């Protein structure tokens, strides 16, 4: 039995289809990432799995319990951290933790060794009001609260959104730790660069899953020629590139543009054409594909 099984799950809000026949499986002890932009349906999926919403079609189970029929059982064994900071801002760190322990009928001391790696970083501020914590500290407190009852499955909806780069990296380290202890983690993020920290990821967009695989396989399976181009007028370069023969796709990517090319593409010819259009210092070199490249190309198909 897998930790999470989703079959043909469908959820509509009026005419808008938030989830369009979604199916996937998360194994026990897996760190599974849902990667996709805003509006991909990630939050809806979390709310369905956390038994806050009922699906319109399809079914899903968490640890073998059905999300509709056995929702009370599910609520005992999952830890849920919504996308928005959902603790009590006017209560202190300690009071929040105590309250959530009481909510699950346990005490902070009983779960202390589990939450310690997370909690010890905010423990010096335990008398501070939660609303006065920094973004990173808030997430750590929310994670501590979600862990207080030793859940078997963790649902983390965009835990790193609005958190600085260092805290984000620390947060993923903590998730790896928790995975070691056998907790199944389903986590969503809009940041493509975080995908590599997951065991497997599902790339999703507009309520559909584009692909599911390990981050490595996803990148390896990208079978097109990819180039990075740059020049002194990036905007003109972007427009020019799209007209050059052999260019299938050109999109801004960090400080350069990425070009997906077919067999007709020739580097020298590209430089000549770009220079002709008035772009100087044109540079073209083959690039390593990333998850984002895969995502952009899957989305355009």
């Amino acid at each position, binding site marked *: 039995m897998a930790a999470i099984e989703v079959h043909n799950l469908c959820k509509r809000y009026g005419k808008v289809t938030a989830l369009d026949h979604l199916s996937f499986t998360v194994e026990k002890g897996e760190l599974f990432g849902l990667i996709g932009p805003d509006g991909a349906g990630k939050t809806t999926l979390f709310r369905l799995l956390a038994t806050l919403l009922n699906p319109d079609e399809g079914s899903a189970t968490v640890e073998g319990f059905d999300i509709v029929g056995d929702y009370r059982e599910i609520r005992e064994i999952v830890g*849920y951290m919504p996308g*928005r900071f959902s603790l009590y801002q006017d209560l202190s760190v300690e009071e929040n933790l105590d309250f959530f322990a009481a*909510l699950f009928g346990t005490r902070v001391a009983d779960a202390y060794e589990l939450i310690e790696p997370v909690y010890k970083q905010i423990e010096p501020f335990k008398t501070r009001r939660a609303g006065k914590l920094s973004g990173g500290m808030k997430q750590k407190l929310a994670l501590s609260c979600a862990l207080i009852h030793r859940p078997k499955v963790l649902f983390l909806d965009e835990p790193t959104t609005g958190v600085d780069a260092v805290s984000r990296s620390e947060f993923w380290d903590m998730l790896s730790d928790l995975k070691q202890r056998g907790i199944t983690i389903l986590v969503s993020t809009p940041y493509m660069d975080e995908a590599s920290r997951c065991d497997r990821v599902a790339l999703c967009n507009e309520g559909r899953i584009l692909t599911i695989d390990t981050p490595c396989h996803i990148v390896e399976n990208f079978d097109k020629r990819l180039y990075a181009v740059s020049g002194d007028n990036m905007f003109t370069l972007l427009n020019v590139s799209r007209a050059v023969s052999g260019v299938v796709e050109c999109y801004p990517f960090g400080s350069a543009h990425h070009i997906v090319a077919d067999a007709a593409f020739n580097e020298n010819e590209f430089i000549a054409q770009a220079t002709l259009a008035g772009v100087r210092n044109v540079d073209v070199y083959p690039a390593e594909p990333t998850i984002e490249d895969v995502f952009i190309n899957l989305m355009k198909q």
Partner: protein
Amino acid sequence: MKKQHNFLSFVKKETLHILRDVRTMMIVLLIPVVLMILFGFAISTEVNNLNIAVVAPTRTDGVRQSIERLANNPYFTFVGYINDEQIDPMLRSAKADAVVVFDSDYERLMAMRAEGMDTKPVMQFIFDASNTNVASAGAAYLQNVMTTDHSSQQLFEMHLLYNPQMKSAYNFVPGIMGLIFILICAMMTSVSIVREKEMGTMEVLLVSPVRPIKIILAKMIPYFVISCINLTTILLIARYILDVPMSGGVGSIIFLSLLYLLLALALGLLVSVISSSQVMALLLSAMVMMLPMMMLSGMVFPLENLPKVLSPLPYIVPARWYIEAIRKVMIMGLPLTAVLKEISILCLMTVVLLGVSLKKFNDKLE
């Protein structure tokens, strides 16, 4: 045992929320005091310190006796004798609220009256009626004082029972109690429950083994306690500052009030179940509950004056029954057995409201 520990933690958390919000807490605790003082002294419709000037062309013994009685009355102040031309300026400058004009032939006309003869009026009251409440109440009372004359034959006798001085405190104290408890129990609890929905904390609460209804009940306890504090303040101010008699016994008043508090909490629960945002909860409480309650509870306007079409409405306003019962017990001094009808209606309303809101309560997001 464990469950009880749970429940206490919820109550503690809710109490912390309230204690942390010092401003709101102060407002909640001070509102009753302010309202009581305001209605008790500033917005009073009773006759108090009315300045009376007198026009008396002949100052015979009979006239002097009448003026003596006027001057000795605690509710009137005799400001002095004036002549006809001064009447208008005195009233306009607000130096006098009313003028009593004696006929120049007062003594003789009174004597004729005493013999049963029909004469022209012997005395005239001229009132500043820019404040109609003060004028009408004052005129009635002034007439009462000036005509309890041995020599005058009265055609009928009037007794105002339970509230002979027409003190407005007797009227508004039950009204304020009806209002305050709805304000605190219904409005504050519903807003605090809906705040959890709005802040997203309800999402986390729902994904836990605890039945949300338990959390909501825990939420109500601190507000119930605050309301009890308010009840004490109101009763103390009413008894010792406004001299309301409490003749039906404090125990009965407290019993009725506790019943009403439960009703208000049930009402708040219903509002919180229906509304999805704090603004909506506030509007629902203010527009749908408070306003009709003030209009239809008999607190401000006599229900008898209501147009026929609207006359069934007051029957569904909880405050109306509470205020009526409190009036009977507090002012008229009736025992609880005399308000059994009101008590059973309040009980019924509480049960219905609780039933509806529990049925409507949803432990999912939609």
